Structures are given as C-alpha cells and as structure tokens.
C-alpha cells in the first residue's frame, strides 16, 4: 500500500514538473540541423544572433550533411515543429514546396532584396513564382588548379580544353609531379550528377529541355560520359578511387597535394590557403572550366539557402534568423569567414569580400557559364536512378550510350508516374 502511494506521488510529481516547464518556458528557441562542416562558424553566429535578438538557436549536428534531409522529412511528416529553420538545397525546393513542408517567404521579400539577388541564386530559392528562403551558399563548381605543379611541368596557363587536360595530366604524371593529375567526386551519389551535368554542358550537351524532357542520351552528354570513362581507363589521369569519392575526399586530396586540379564548390582558395587544413598554401588558383573547344566553359550551379519549416511555431523569429544569417550582411560575414559563396550582388562586389576571399575575381568570370539541374519534385528519385546508370558506364558494365539510353527510359517512367500520382 505504502509502495503504491509512493509510486503514485512520484508519477504526479514528474507530470507536474513537465507541465510547469512547458507552460512557463517562454523564451523563444529555434532549432536547426546540419552536418559537421562549418560548425564553429555557425555556433559563433548563433551566439551573435542571440545577443542581438534574445532568440536562441540550437544546432543538431549529424555526421553527413545530406542525411539532414531524412531527419527533416521525418520532422515534416510529424508536423514540422522539430526544426524551425534549415538549409535547403536547390534540388529540394520543388519537392518540399509541393509537399507543403517549407514556408513561402514572399511577404518578407522587399523590392531591394529582389534587385540585390544574383539571378541563378534567385532561381535556386524559387518554385512556381514563390520564394522559399534566402540564398546562403549560391555556389557553382569552379575549376581549381595547383599553379606550382603546372609550372613544375613547364605549363604557364591552366588547361582550357579537355584535350589540354589530358595532355597536361599525362605530362604531370610522367614527370612524377603527381601520381594522378586529378580526382572527381564520382561516388554513386548526387555528387556524380553534379559533375556529369557540368562536364556534359562543357561538351555542349543538354540535360533537359524547357518542357523537362530529358535530352542527355545524345550529342555532348554522351561524349562527356565517354570522356569520363576514358579519363579513368584509357588516359588514366583520374584516380580510380574517384568512383567511391564524394567532394570531401577530393578536397582532402587537393589539400594534401596529391592531385593537380579539382572541381570545387564555394570559395576553394579560402580552404586551400588555410594553414590548418592545407599543405599547398598559396599554390592554388582558379581557372575557367575546361570545355570541348575552350569556348564553352560551362559548370553546374548548386545554390543553397536557409528556409523556414511550415510547421514552425515562430515564423517571425525564424525569418529574423534567416535574414540575419543569409541576408546581404550575414552573407558577407559567411563569405569572408566560412568561404560561403554569396547570392547577393553587393556582397560579390564588396571590396572587403574581394580582398578577403582569394580568387573571387577569377571565379566571377565563370558566372556567365552556369547551368542548373532540373527543379522538379521528382528530382531525388531521378538522381538515384541516374547515379546508378552513370556508375554502370564508369565501371564498364555498360557503354555510355546504353547507360544513358536506359537512364532516359527510366526518367520518363519516373516523370510519368509522378504526374499520374499527382493528378
């Protein structure tokens, strides 16, 4: 009897305490989730935001950034309250917007912001005419080369064509400067799609037409995939480990001086000139993306931004946060301190940013030659399928033409199935 009473009193106490805490905890706290990159930067900015506004931001760190998507989706299905603000990739905007998971922020967008934003960064944050966040890492893949290594092989300029890349690479390897001239992020993941889109565009290939019909089994796209295969097995200028590498592995190889060039997101020279991370200080430079004729140096864009969950209890506070971290002022800080590519014109033209971000002037030359991946709600399923097919070509299981033909068939199935399911 006494024990029963004790258990009952204990349960009542715990319940009362929980109710008290939930009713009387009035401080606004925002929650977000991210991968391990840039955690110290985020934490310092969150402290600044809290000091300025009194709004605390809690960061949930997970081992691999892209896995945040799964946790975010789980939270959206459960109502969207768990994470108030989050980083969104351009390839996720369409799906999240269609599903009603992300809050449109049109009401907060002023004419000044609209004028300020770089066009491709705006495209990355918009779907069907609505804004779904502010641009944060409005980046593309730049061609980065180790100038010192090229000079050691008697080259005074970066390679402009893919034939030049082969020629330079073979000389670099034959003269013992590097074992492999380059490496790419060709793991069976989204990183492979990004590289394929960039290389295909530089070969004059098209990905999709205006009506979202896939076109990548003809012309330049097939030639691009053939070049990728040849670079591994015929010319042997790309490290075979690239087949299992993502961007982090390629960055590490470049930082260690193992390769002479790479494609890199963001402001690569901020990282490559950081003595804590790189052993090739002041050796790297930015060039234009090589292309088939030297005249179409196209690369792929990957704008990301900060968005607000539709289920957040604090939309106004969430907007204050994303304006702080991703608006023009916040973007300037992120550019200088964390190497985040700004989507705001004033930041890109800011002398302090240009001085603080090495290579920005060279990178800006690439801005006229950018292609986007399709902004469609069925992108994830398409991406997983295309990565499988590209890998079948890269591992010699299928020819590039066969692999891309199959990819086209599957793409049409995915598109049709989605359209049927959403009618």
């Amino acid at each position: 009897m006494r024990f029963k009473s004790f258990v009952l009193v204990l349960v009542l106490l715990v319940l009362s305490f929980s109710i008290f805490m939930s009713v009387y905890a009035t401080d606004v706290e925002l929650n977000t989730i991210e991968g391990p990159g840039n955690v110290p930067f985020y934490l310092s900015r969150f402290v600044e935001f809290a000091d300025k506004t009194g709004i605390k931001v809690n960061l949930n760190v997970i081992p691999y950034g892209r896995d945040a998507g799964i946790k975010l989706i789980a939270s959206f299905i459960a109502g969207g309250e768990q994470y108030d603000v989050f980083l969104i990739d351009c390839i996720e905007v369409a799906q999240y917007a269609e599903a009603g998971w992300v809050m449109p922020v049109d009401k907060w967008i002023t004419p000044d912001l609209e004028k300020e934003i770089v066009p491709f960064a705006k495209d990355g944050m918009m779907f069907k005419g609505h804004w779904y966040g502010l641009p944060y890492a409005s980046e593309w893949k730049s061609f980065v080369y180790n100038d010192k290594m090229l000079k050691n092989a008697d080259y005074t300029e970066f390679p402009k064509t893919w034939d030049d890349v082969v020629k330079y690479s073979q000389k670099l390897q034959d003269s013992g400067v590097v074992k492999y001239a380059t490496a790419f992020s060709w793991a069976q993941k989204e990183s492979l799609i990004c590289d394929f889109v960039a290389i295909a565009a530089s070969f004059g290939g098209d990905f999709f037409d205006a009506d979202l019909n896939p076109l990548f089994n003809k012309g330049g796209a097939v030639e691009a995939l053939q070049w990728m295969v040849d670079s591994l097995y015929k010319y042997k200028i790309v490290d075979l480990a690239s087949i299992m590498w993502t961007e982090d592995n390629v960055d590490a190889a470049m930082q260690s001086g193992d390769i002479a060039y790479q494609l890199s997101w963001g402001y690569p020279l901020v990282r490559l000139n950081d003595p804590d991370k790189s052993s090739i200080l002041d050796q790297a430079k930015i060039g234009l993306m090589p292309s088939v004729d030297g005249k179409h140096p196209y690369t792929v864009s990957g704008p990301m931004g900060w968005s607000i969950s539709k289920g957040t209890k604090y939309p106004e506070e969430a907007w204050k946060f994303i304006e702080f971290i991703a608006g023009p002022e916040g973007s300037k800080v992120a550019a200088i301190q964390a190497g985040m590519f700004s989507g705001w014109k004033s930041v890109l033209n800011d002398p302090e940013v240009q001085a603080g971000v090495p290579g920005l002037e060279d990178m800006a030359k690439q801005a006229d030659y950018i292609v986007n991946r399709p902004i469609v709600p069925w992108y994830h399923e398409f991406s997983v399928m295309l990565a499988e097919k590209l890998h079948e070509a890269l591992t010699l299981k299928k020819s590039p033409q066969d692999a891309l033909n199959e990819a086209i068939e599957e793409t049409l199935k995915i598109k049709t199935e989605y359209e049927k399911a959403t009618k």
Partner: protein
Amino acid sequence: MELNSTLEAKDKKLGYILIAPTLIILFLVVIYPLLYAFYISFYNMNVAIPWKGKIFVGFDNYISVIQDISWWKAILRTFYFVIADIVVGIILGLMIALLLNKKLIIKSLIFAIVLFPYVLPPIVNALMWKLIYDSNYGLLNGMLYQFGFISDYIAWLSKTNLAIIMLIIANLWQGTPFAVILFLSGLKSIPLELYEAARIDGSSSWQSFKYITLPLLKPIIYILIVMKTILTFKIFDLIYALTGGGPANTTQVVSMKIYNESFNFLKFGRASAMSYILLGVVTCFVIIYMKLFEEKKETEN
C-alpha cells in the same frame, strides 16, 4: 490460505503495474510500427504527395516488388553475403575457439583481442574499415605493398568485383567473435572423458575432432546458421558507410534498396511491402533450416 492467495493476487497486480511501462514502450516502439507498416503496405503512400493521402491498392505493391528485377538482384547479392558469412564465419570461429580452448599462457589477452571487434558499434567498425581500405593512405594497401604482394595501390571499394568481398571481410571481422564465444562454451561442455577414451582406443586428433567435437557442436552450428542468416540479411550500417550500395549497385543489398525506397523516394507503402517480403524470405530460410536440422537429428537418433 485465503490470506496467501490475497497476497499473491496483490503481488501479481504490483508486478503488472511495474512492467506496464516497459510493455507500453515495447508496444509503441515495436508492435505498433510493425502493424502499421503491414497496414500501409497495402496502400500507395508517397509522403511527398501528402495531399493525395493513402490510396488503397491491395497487393499492387507486393506484385510490383516481386516483378522488379533489381529487387531480386539485391536479394541474390544479400544471399551471397549471407553464404560467405556463414561458411567463413563458422569455420573461422571454430578454429579460433579450438585455439582458445588450449592451455595458453596469454589466453586472456588473446581472448580480449579476439572479442574486441564484437564490442565496437557497427558504424565505428565501418568507418575504421573505410580508412583501412583507403586507396591512397589505407593500411591494407600499405601492408600489401610493403610485403611485395601488390605492385601498385588498389582502389578496393571502386572495383565491382572486389567491393562486396571487402565488405564481407569487414563484416566477418566484427561478427566472428560471436561464433567464437558460442563455440568456446560448447567446447567447454564436452566431457573430457570422451577424448580420454578415444585416445586410449588409438584415435588421432583429427578423428577425435571429426567423431567427437564436431557432432557435439552441431547444435551450436545450427544456431549460428540461423542467427547469421537473420542478422546478415538485414545488414545495413556497413554498406551505407562504406559504399552506399555502389560501385554500380554491386553492393546494393536488400536493406539499402528498402532504405532508398523509403528515405530517397519517400514511397513508404512500397518500402513496407519490400520489408514484409524480406521477412517472408528470411522466415522461409529459417523454416527450411529447422526442417533440415530436425530431419538430420532424427536420422542421427
């Protein structure tokens, strides 16, 4: 008497109250999700199209999965993984257990070293092997190159014919200690008099092993076959961390396929159907094993 039964009833009631929280949690975390997954396997449920809700499709999800060649390829790959794990794992486990059953001076130290992989979290094991297999700085390449077994470093996880073998090795490294523990306990339970009698009759070590040790360890071998089948069929952490199913799907086991269906394509209905088909496949194997083992036991009796 009446007082005793009243006290017993009160004890039982208290017992139910005390285990109630555990049962509630078990129901919410295990039973309910299992039942819900079975329920939604009969629905077309894409969480990225929430305005459509769940649409009842009957057995369409199951039929679509069974007609999907990539599904059966994943099953075959997983089965290959399972067979390798069973055969090599049991032989290796038995060999190590036989060694540890001897009188050795540093037996405790060897036992601790042998058991170490088993206590590592699976993801830590996976990340460790990722470093070992690294094509430029990995321990495996370094060792083989230094000893002259290879003339150039190999990108182990980039080769379609090698990637799954490297995963099997990584899995065996972690799973074998479990077999060692079971075999060791089995060996300790074999009466020494049997070996004495065999020695007196002039049996060799091999004959003792073949006619005494092995038959008496059969129940443990059967248990290991069943458990390894169940555990290896649902292997995920290692594949996810090391290869993600690549290169070119050559390591895409069935759990990765289900993961893609649910967390990349967000088709929870079809993913649930896949899970229950997998459950059916594994259950079939277990039933086949049990029948075979029972028949064998009857024959031996």
